[in-house]
């Protein structure tokens, strides 16, 4: 045990021999070579180059696990105490890689192939054909266009949610009751919402809302008949479910604002509106951006209500990308093309969210 050096952070000062280091490296590279070899053999077997007799991909999986174990072990061998620290993170990182990166790579492989589950020929690599097909697919572009509308509706939802949050933050009677009551729609599954509201309450003949509409003088109420109306109703149902979510996040933000700030603004003679616009709103921006961002992510997944209520109709007016991919993938077993559409959607989402976050960053920072 040494008594020199960084005594505060180092528990044991390792004295690691060159032979031990060599063994560690050999362990890593040896197991890695084994992994590569098994993977190549497996690929060769799959592609028909060599007859090895691997019926599943398990040998490669086992080789990966062996390599992962060796990699972790070698950290300790090579780096001693420092390596032990790495062990706190490395297995988790390897696990994430195996569950995210590897499927993503396989997914990309599928996305660039022609794979209809009903085709006797199975999967065939087809290069960029799926991209070309997507480029010329009016259904996909229509769905993407609809997504722009659906996402834009978040601004309205945000305004309503903010208003509700302000109300619930105010000194009103039965505040606790309203907080719970307003949260209820969020607790419902969108599938339940689509059946209870979309298919029952909005049913044109017997639905209570249709009756109300008739009583109000609308002779032949039709909630999903015209493209604009159908899109609007889908937005409303989705908003009804998720406004409480934004509301609760904004409410939490409101409650975190110190009371002194409002009191100070009042002392300075700010009106209610000025106090909101100059104090509350800027302070709420971080919470708002988070709420909107999470809401966008929810919105981009919008599918269940559409699938249940309109199946994307009339004429594709309510189709979302997810509901279109669902039909392409599930009803038409078009695995390759469906995967490509999902991948492209993923890329679009990543780009859009990155831009949004950059912009949000720019909006927010000059204020302070």
């Amino acid at each position, binding site marked *: 045990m040494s008594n020199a050096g960084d005594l505060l952070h180092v528990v044991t000062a390792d004295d690691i021999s060159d032979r031990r280091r060599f063994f560690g490296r050999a362990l890593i590279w040896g197991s890695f070579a084994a992994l590569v070899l098994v993977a190549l053999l497996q690929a060769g077997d799959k592609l028909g180059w060599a007859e090895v007799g691997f019926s599943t991909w398990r040998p490669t999986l086992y080789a990966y696990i062996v390599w992962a174990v060796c990699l972790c072990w070698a950290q300790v061998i090579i780096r001693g105490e420092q390596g032990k620290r790495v062990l706190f993170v490395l297995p988790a990182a390897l696990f994430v890689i195996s569950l995210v990166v590897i499927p993503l790579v396989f997914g990309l492989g599928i996305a660039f192939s*022609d*794979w*209809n*589950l*009903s*085709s*006797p*020929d*199975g999967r065939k690599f087809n290069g960029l054909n799926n991209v070309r097909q997507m480029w010329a697919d009016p*259904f996909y572009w229509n769905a993407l266009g609809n997504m722009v509308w659906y996402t834009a509706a978040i601004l309205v939802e945000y305004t309503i949610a903010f208003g509700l949050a302000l109300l619930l933050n105010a000194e009103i009677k039965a505040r606790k009751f309203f907080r719970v009551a307003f949260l209820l729609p969020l607790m419902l599954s969108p599938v339940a919402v689509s059946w209870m509201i979309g298919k029952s309450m909005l*049913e*044109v*003949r*017997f639905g209570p809302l249709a009756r109300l509409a008739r009583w109000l003088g609308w002779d*032949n*109420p*039709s*909630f*999903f*008949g015209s*493209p604009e109306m*159908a899109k609007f109703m889908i937005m409303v149902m989705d908003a009804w479910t998720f406004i409480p979510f934004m509301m609760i996040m904004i409410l939490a933000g409101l409650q975190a604002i110190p009371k002194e700030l409002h009191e100070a603004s009042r002392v300075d003679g700010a009106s209610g509106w000025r106090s909101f616009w100059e104090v509350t709103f800027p302070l709420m921006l971080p919470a708002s951006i988070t709420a909107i961002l999470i809401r966008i992510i929810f919105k981009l997944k919008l599918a269940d209500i559409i699938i249940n*209520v*309109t*199946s*994307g*109709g*009339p*004429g*594709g*007016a309510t189709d979302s990308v997810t509901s279109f991919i669902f*039909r392409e993938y*599930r*009803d*038409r*077993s*078009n695995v390759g093309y469906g995967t490509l559409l999902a991948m492209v959607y993923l890329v679009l989402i990543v780009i859009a969210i990155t831009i949004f976050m950059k912009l949000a960053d720019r909006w927010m920072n000059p204020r302070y």
Partner: protein
Amino acid sequence: MKVEIYNQMLKAGKISRRNVMKGMASVGALSAMGGLPAPVRAASHGGNVRAEILKIPGVGMGSPTDADWQKVGEMCLGPTMANVAEGEFAGVELTFMGLNNQNLHNFLFRGFLKPWEAYTGAKINWIDLAQADYNPRLQQSIATGTVDFDIIEMGAPFEGDTAGRGLLDEMPDWVKDQIEADDIVGYLQPPVGTWDGKTYRITIDGDCHTFAYRKDYFTDPAITAATGMTEPPTTWQQVQAFTKAVKGQKDPLTGLDAYGFLDPLKGWGGFGFYFLEDRASAYVKHPDSPAWLFDPETMKPMVNNPGWVQAIQDVMDTMPDLPPDQINADPGTTAFQQFLAGTGSGICWWGDVGSSARTSDGSVVGDVVGFSINPGSDRVYNAKTSEWETPAEPNFAPNMAYLGWGVYVTSRVSGDEKKRKAAWSAAAHLGGKDISLWMSAYPSGFQPYRNSHFQYDEWEEAGYDRAYIEDYLGSNADSYNHPNAAIEPRIPGIFQYYSIAEDELAKGFAGQYGSAQETADAIAAAWEKITDQIGRDSQIALYKASLGM
């Protein structure tokens, strides 16, 4: 029989209790004797077995339980005993994949096969699937080459995916004799269940569309004055005229606006396309050719030929005369929320709409509903000559929408003769003539599919109301045995074609295409893409095989 039908019949008193005491007495006597050894018991029923099994648990005595299924399975063991010695399959293990809808299907099969297992010595392992999981599971098994079941409950549309790829085992001749295959109704006879002349399927279910209409629309003075029709329409031309003429009248039952024939305009996961087929089959299913969806030589879609376009045009023509929001009505809506609730006067649907009409609490059309086979057409398009023809009699072509369930044996057992015989023996037990009568009379999830199921005396003897059962089953029987029935092609991916057609039709109905012809052309183009993707040559070969060409 479908569960909901059975329950509704019970509620509405359509099942009489006349025979219940009789049934209880005989079952009671049997149990008082302490039960006989299985072989004796099964054999002793002899020719009476059909009447005896219908007493288990007794019509009107509540839903049958596992004990009842086992009892029925045991009493129907006779044909198995004739072909299999006791304990012959000792040590054989089989895997059976099927559905668990409404706790039926596999649940029944388990009960039915338990005595079979006891007698033969074989053991069955079960894979239960929900309906929604069924197609993906089957297709993934096929696509990834991981078929892990020996016996499978499967719909005929999948025969292309399975038999077409050599995944099924050919039915031995002794099975055909054991299940009395000749008794099965006309449309389920070969080529259904066969590929390249080989038989693979033991039918356990049947399905077809029939025309249900409101009789009171043809007696109501105001409506008949407006339409000039006192008899229900028998052709689509009459249906069109009626639907247009009835607009503006009031429904005799509900007093609300009257409507004619209801077309579902919204997709239904591919199943919605059957309803366009109902119209189109009369126009395009020429008696001289079994093909009506694709040209069997080229797989070129027929869906944009003048006959199909006429069918699409018909739908578009009557759209203004349909209830508001019809664009958002799928087939389930038209049947259960509209027709049964008193909106509209005509509909094409499967058998259960007819029976629900009389027995469901939600139905107001009660005793004013009548049935016939699907309407025909005054003229029929001959795809071979590309000409419209006007036959002396209207052209009828009932739509055999979905071919019902069957039991199949996979080629996993082909190499092992003992296992193969065991698998076929189990399947044959489920598809037996007597056991099938029980399945069509009690909740099972299956419809009648044998000519012997239409012996109304047996139903009456068991305690059913004869007039009711004749009405319920009659139009089905007429459709099943029609010589020009439009039969679904059993090619791989048939529902993919239906699904994309629904999407394109939705655009057409929403006015995004210029005409019915453009809509049909868009469907045809999409179908060509699917055919190319799945493989044109193999599709042609499989389509021909499915048509028996």
